[in-house]
């Protein structure tokens, strides 16, 4: 009997992972070819702008993954993920600013332009070390991770849950936005960082470097996906879902719910930070508006639309919604916010499992286990 069970578990492994990694590999192969090999005169050519867009979508997919991990699996609706994304982005931005060196407008070999402009006499202490890529890389992980650890440690220990936690995560990102807007914070005020020259000596204006950045992003996204998949399909992953569905029961089984939440929250925010760090060199700018509360809410919408609690659904939602956003804002910009709102309402009402639910719903009716699952979900919905 036990062996039979093990077999069943492996058979239940989703085909979604294969689809997701396959699609990602396809993007990583096709997009560079369309940019570098296909001539600009061809209709299939992807411009530098198109390349940047695809890179941006992949960064957003990673951000969505981080939200799905904490919200879809652990039930914690964090509305502050953009804060971690921005912190990762700022850490990368600080490296890129130092990398400019004497090539800035003012030609100061140490101080970035905005510091010269704001009459800084010397480099603030927290800017030291950012001329080394390795140190900056560490900070891209540590800054969001440590903030999430400190914040989560207090919030989860005080048993702040549900909508209250969502609100304080919004407050967190809002407070950071206000702080980063200030000129005397030493992060460039409302202009943030821009005019980057190169990364590790590679020219950021070259399309080849952008192709390379895109490939790295795709690779990191795939790796992060597999890491998340490993976490959610481990026993710890089942504990996390148990916490989502019946927190106090889990506590009475002897699990330290707070520490589970904290680990997942830290992991999720580090992933968000990596997404931000990959975003900045491709987009070429980071400023405090990245912290704005609406950004975090938008990520939640992507995840809800794609289908939460599946990981690949979140990534799909991020890419589709942002593609739609690019399309709408260039054709009928005033309609976008209405379209987004309408989509969100429609998905919540008619597709509680998101777009992924549409696809996998059909598949699930096949096996007996799937039928039981469908019944259970129906029963749950009936209860609500």
């Amino acid at each position, binding site marked *: 009997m036990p062996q039979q069970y093990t077999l069943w578990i492996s058979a239940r492994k989703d085909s979604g992972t294969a689809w997701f990694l396959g699609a990602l590999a396809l993007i990583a192969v096709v997009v560079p070819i369309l940019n570098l090999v296909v001539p600009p005169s061809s209709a299939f050519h992807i411009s530098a702008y198109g390349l940047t867009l695809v890179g941006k979508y992949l960064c957003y997919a990673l951000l969505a993954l981080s939200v799905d991990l904490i919200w879809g699996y652990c039930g914690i609706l964090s509305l502050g993920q953009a804060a971690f994304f921005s912190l990762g982005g700022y850490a990368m931005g600080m490296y890129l600013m130092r990398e400019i060196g004497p090539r800035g407008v003012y030609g100061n070999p140490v101080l970035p332009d905005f510091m010269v402009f704001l009459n800084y006499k010397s480099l603030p202490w927290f800017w030291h070390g950012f001329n080394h890529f390795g140190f900056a890389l560490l900070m891209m992980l540590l800054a969001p991770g440590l903030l999430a650890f400190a914040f989560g440690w207090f919030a989860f220990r005080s048993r702040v849950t549900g909508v209250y936690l969502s609100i304080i995560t919004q407050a967190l990102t809002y407070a950071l936005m206000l702080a980063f807007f200030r000129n005397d914070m030493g992060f460039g005020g409302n202009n943030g960082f821009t005019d980057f020259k190169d990364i590790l000596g590679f020219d950021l204006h070259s399309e080849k470097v952008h192709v390379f950045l895109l490939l790295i992003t795709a690779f990191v996204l795939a790796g992060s996906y597999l890491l998340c998949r490993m976490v959610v399909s*481990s*026993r710890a992953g089942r*504990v996390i*879902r148990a916490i989502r569905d019946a927190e106090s029961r889990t506590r009475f089984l002897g699990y330290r719910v707070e520490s589970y939440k904290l680990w997942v929250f830290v992991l999720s925010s580090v992933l968000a930070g990596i997404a931000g760090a990959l975003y900045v060199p491709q987009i070429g700018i980071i400023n405090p508006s990245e912290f704005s509360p609406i950004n975090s809410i938008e990520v939640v919408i992507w995840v809800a639309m794609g289908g939460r609690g599946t990981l690949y659904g979140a990534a799909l939602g991020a890419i589709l919604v942002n593609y739609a956003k690019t399309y709408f804002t260039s054709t009928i910009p005033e309609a976008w916010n209405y379209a987004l709102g309408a989509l969100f309402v429609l998905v919540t009402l008619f597709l509680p499992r998101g777009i992924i639910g549409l696809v996998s719903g059909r598949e699930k009716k096949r096996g007996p*286990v799937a039928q039981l699952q469908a019944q*259970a979900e129906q029963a749950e919905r009936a209860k609500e």
Partner: protein
Amino acid sequence: MSGHDRTLYLDRLTVSFDGFKALNELTLQIDPGELRCIIGPNGAGKTTMMDVVTGKTRPDSGTARFGDKLNLLEMSEPEIAQAGIGRKFQKPTVFERLTVFENLELALAGDKSFLRTLLARRTLKQENRIFEVLEIIGLTQQHQALAGILSHGQKQWLEIGMLMMQEPELLLVDEPVAGMTPQEIERTSSLLLSLAGEHSVVVVEHDMEFVRSIAKRVTVLHEGRVIAEGNMDQVQNDPRVIEVYLGA
């Protein structure tokens, strides 16, 4: 099975909520391997007592000891659970979106830290133990089903099964037969009876028929204190009990 003289010892526990004394100098002792039923009208403090024992509520005064050494009032809920006190809630709470098997697996005794569970591999021994418990609670057939689709009675048994997986010294069982059919009740009685001896079991229940069928010793609570203790006949003939509870 344990070397203790007593499994649980509560001494003059008092809990008040806004002036209302949910527990009023409650003193209670549970012996190793004992099956004890606790009855009492609504608001007698039965659930509050369980909350104190499992660390959910802190009393204003009094002591609560588990075994000879452990002071329950200084321990958190997971620590108490890990020390060997399992609790079944009044309303069946199982993890509805996990399978029956996974529900039992999560209840397995052992190290429950994040890193350990992240890397945990199920051993054959653990799987066999899970199937053993599935057999006892009669859910072998349903082990792949999501717990959410089980009937009310089956959920109660699953939850009792989860308690067994924890290998606790003491099981606290809150209203196990509420809403059950007579056949299900019968099955639950034999399940609880089979658990006593190896574990100490404390059952809180309203159903007098059921209490009579399983209990050797019955404790009657009223307004947060013990007003009678003994076998079912003694308790039923106690004039104070008749006045506050049975006679009503």
